[in-house]
């Protein structure tokens, strides 16, 4: 039988993978994908907590559904920003977005 610890370890692995992708990749869209991976890791841990620790009140599932809605809004605005920046800079690499530094 799968245990709560098993789900939480998978969640921690996915969160670490997402954090690595966010820090290590240079493509702006792939950084957004990594953020989505981290959202999903948190969602998995919330649903696992709900199922194993507090099955009576469905707070974890409700929270996960709300995180999904917020993630959809976030990725919509984020991708629109990335498309606008790529259109003006002709590059998807975040190192080329350094106008504020110069």
């Amino acid at each position, binding site marked *: 039988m799968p245990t709560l610890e098993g789900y939480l370890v*998978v969640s921690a692995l996915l969160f670490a993978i997402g954090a690595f992708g966010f820090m290590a990749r240079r493509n702006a869209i792939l950084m957004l994908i990594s953020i989505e991976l981290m959202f999903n890791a948190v969602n*998995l841990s919330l649903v696992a907590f*709900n199922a194993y620790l507090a*099955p009576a009140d469905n707070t974890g599932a409700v929270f*996960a559904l709300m995180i999904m809605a917020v993630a959809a809004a976030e990725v919509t605005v984020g991708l629109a920003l990335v498309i606008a920046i790529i259109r003006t800079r002709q590059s*998807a690499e975040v190192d080329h977005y350094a106008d504020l530094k110069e």
Partner: protein
Amino acid sequence: MASVPISGIRHGTLTSNPPTLRRPDLPLTTERRCAAYLTGPLLAYATASTAALESRRRPSRAAEPLEPSNGAPTLDISGVLFSVLAIGVVGAGVAVVTLRNIIHSAVAMMICFGSLAGMYALLGAPIVAAAQVLIYLGAISVLILFAIMLTQAGDASLPAPYHRQMPVAIVVALGILGLVGWAVIQTDWGAAAEVAAASVDAIAMALFTTYALPFEIISLLLLVAIIGAIYLARRPEEDERAG
């Protein structure tokens, strides 16, 4: 064929009697007898699952003996499913951040989201699994694929996909993993051994009574996000043409 009642099955225990069909108006042909033999175990499994779910939802009925008393070794299907889905989630996640072609990364992300939907179903949260498939697999993946195809002209592969701070990123990610994993293993959760299936009714009641205000705020947030995305992604020359 599923509508034909079959005797000899009660709470998952398949007796040695051959299943018979209670349709005396129809002749008992060899085909129908074979079909009864084939669907019998399936129906028995479905009956056993339904009975187990019912007893889990209503604790007063849990006293009824459900498992077969012959002590046959049962295959741990949920453990096997969890292993397969965990490998899918972690493997696809690693593929997302390591593949050079960003379209391949996006496809690996879809595999990762699909495996996560299976995990939610395994956790007894079918409404979250359905929302995962609808929102992540349906909406967000298509949005990301469209954004990639709008922005990456020609070959989407980058010569050097990694930032120069990649070694630091590995250290930080391993640090996060170590800290969280250590906390998970050290803590005595006192968790239930069995997952109880969450009823969709209860989640809907919580969503529209206790959490009605956050629900409405999220609808407002989605509206703002739609307007903002349309404003941001609009081409500047369309602006000038319009006015």
